[in-house]
């Protein structure tokens, strides 16, 4: 299945590496990244493979431990968004009529709103915190999956087995959750993977703007501090700026490739060159 394509193998390999770092990061990291372990702005050495930052924290340890923060925010936001999106898509697609119209109108509004500016505004009032970050990302990314899942529901609503269940007197609730939900679950899963890669990117951008939790640094936050504490002025950018960006890219690529391979596997008709 997934391992049959080089795309799937690469994606899953990257994801496994990221998950490993996220789970065991604090055990692998040579130092506690929240405490200074050297002098400020140390160059790479055997003690600090990627040098130290402006307050003497080990950059390699920040990078390893930051994996958990970045993935956790990306995952939670994506999971929440898929939950909202699936519910909205199910209700809208199944009910039809005015409720469908109203929900889809809401989706349209969400898709048009300029979301990075919106998040800057919301975060400016709520203050930077991991919870706020997750909530903000979740609120802006649920709309697209909702629309995709709705079209899946529309396709299933007229299916013979659904008609049959209805003819046998099954309740709407029963039909929705026992017959239609399992049908759209594959769509939800592949949407989740794609949304997760997007939300990791958004998290990085927002943290880079300083909207992340200052105590639990993600890859984006590391880049924020590198930018404002002069990584370009003192020449420390090769070990302070390059590695976090590479990590973000690899993580996003892992999700994106896995998502593509999964989509090709679950919906062979979508596969086109």
């Amino acid at each position, binding site marked *: 299945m997934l391992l049959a394509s080089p795309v799937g193998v690469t994606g899953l390999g990257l994801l496994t590496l990221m998950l490993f770092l996220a789970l065991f990061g604090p055990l692998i990291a040579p130092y506690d990244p929240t405490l200074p372990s050297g002098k400020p702005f140390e160059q790479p050495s055997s003690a600090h493979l990627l040098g130290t930052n402006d307050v003497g924290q080990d950059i390699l340890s920040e990078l390893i431990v930051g994996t958990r923060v970045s993935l956790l925010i990306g995952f939670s936001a994506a999971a929440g968004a898929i939950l909202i999106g699936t519910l909205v898509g199910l209700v809208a697609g199944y009910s039809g009529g005015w409720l469908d119209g109203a929900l889809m109108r809401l989706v349209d509004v969400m898709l048009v709103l300029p979301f990075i500016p919106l998040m*800057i505004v919301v975060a400016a009032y709520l203050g930077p915190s991991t919870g706020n970050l997750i909530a903000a990302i979740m609120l802006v990314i649920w709309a697209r999956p909702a629309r995709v899942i709705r079209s899946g529901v529309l396709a299933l609503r007229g299916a013979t087995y659904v008609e049959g269940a209805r003819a046998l007197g099954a309740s709407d609730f029963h039909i929705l959750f026992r017959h239609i939900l399992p049908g759209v679950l594959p769509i939800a899963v592949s949407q989740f993977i794609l949304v997760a890669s997007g939300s990791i990117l958004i998290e990085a951008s927002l943290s880079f*703007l300083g909207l992340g939790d200052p105590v639990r640094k993600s890859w984006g936050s590391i880049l924020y501090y590198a930018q404002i504490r002069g990584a370009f002025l003192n020449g420390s950018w090769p070990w302070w*700026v390059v590695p976090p960006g590479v990590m973000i890219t690899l993580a996003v690529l892992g999700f994106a490739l896995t998502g593509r391979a999964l989509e090709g596997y679950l919906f062979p008709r979508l596969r086109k*060159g």
Partner: protein
Amino acid sequence: MLNRLGQYLLVLLVAVTVNFFLPRAMPGSPLQFLAGDEVATLSPEQRQAILQRAGLDQPLLVQFLRYLGQLARGDLGYSYQENRPVRSILLERLPWTLLLTATALLLSSLFGVIVGALAAWRRGGMLDNTTLAGSIALDAVPTFWLGMMLVAIFAVQLQIFPVFGARTAWANYQGWSAVVDVTRHLVLPATTLTIASLSGTYLVMRYAMLAVLGEDYIRTARAKGMAERQVLYKHALRNAILPVFTVFMLNLGTLVGGAAVIETVFSYPGVGRLLFESATNRDYPLLQGAFFLVTLSVLLFNLLADLLYPLVDPRVRGSHG
């Protein structure tokens, strides 16, 4: 059309509501959220004027209507930190953002169309395979980090381009040298944005071209012995470019707000950077004004797209309303 207009008004209402209710829902003195961090330095008369203006003693609905009235008159409030009206600050920043994003949008569309068309024309060839893989990889790279890398290489290491800003401070260039100066500052941020939005146009163009190449009229053109080059230019390109136009128009909407992160990387003095600055400085009137402008511009450009589309594609004429 009326339907679309209603939708845009709804979006505007959401944005205005965020601006109005979010500060009022916050704990603490509303004065701070209305005036920003400057509250402590204000004179009692100024405080009174702010409260008067917001009408905090009135019912919430009256306050909201009053606020809408001010917006309708183009009154975006007053920045107590900058000590001047929000509108004049925004108007100063807007041209820079438009210059940056319009340049990037034009360049990325141009390159996207060319590369996408060539890739589809020789489907499965070297160019097709490498650009397709490249676009997937490029989509995974955070845009702001791409900008940081360009700064590191071309501004810090090679010192070909300036590190930040839109003009050399204090230089006071005139005429031609001012143009050169502005262009030199534009190169890196515009390149970053161009690369970042390249893959979208490329993919749309490639798919559109593949679809068109499978059409009957292409087969007919070839069958009647038309030269390949002519098939490409006369029939295929012309029809495949329509979806790209749609994407182009949609991207126009993100023109003002879309560059917020990039403007921050390059300290480019646009509206996006202003949004970030005012959030960091807790200059709430300015923050609200910038957010309003960004939302408004998204809607105006989307409206423009709706109006222009029937002119470009005769097929949607009549069926669009």
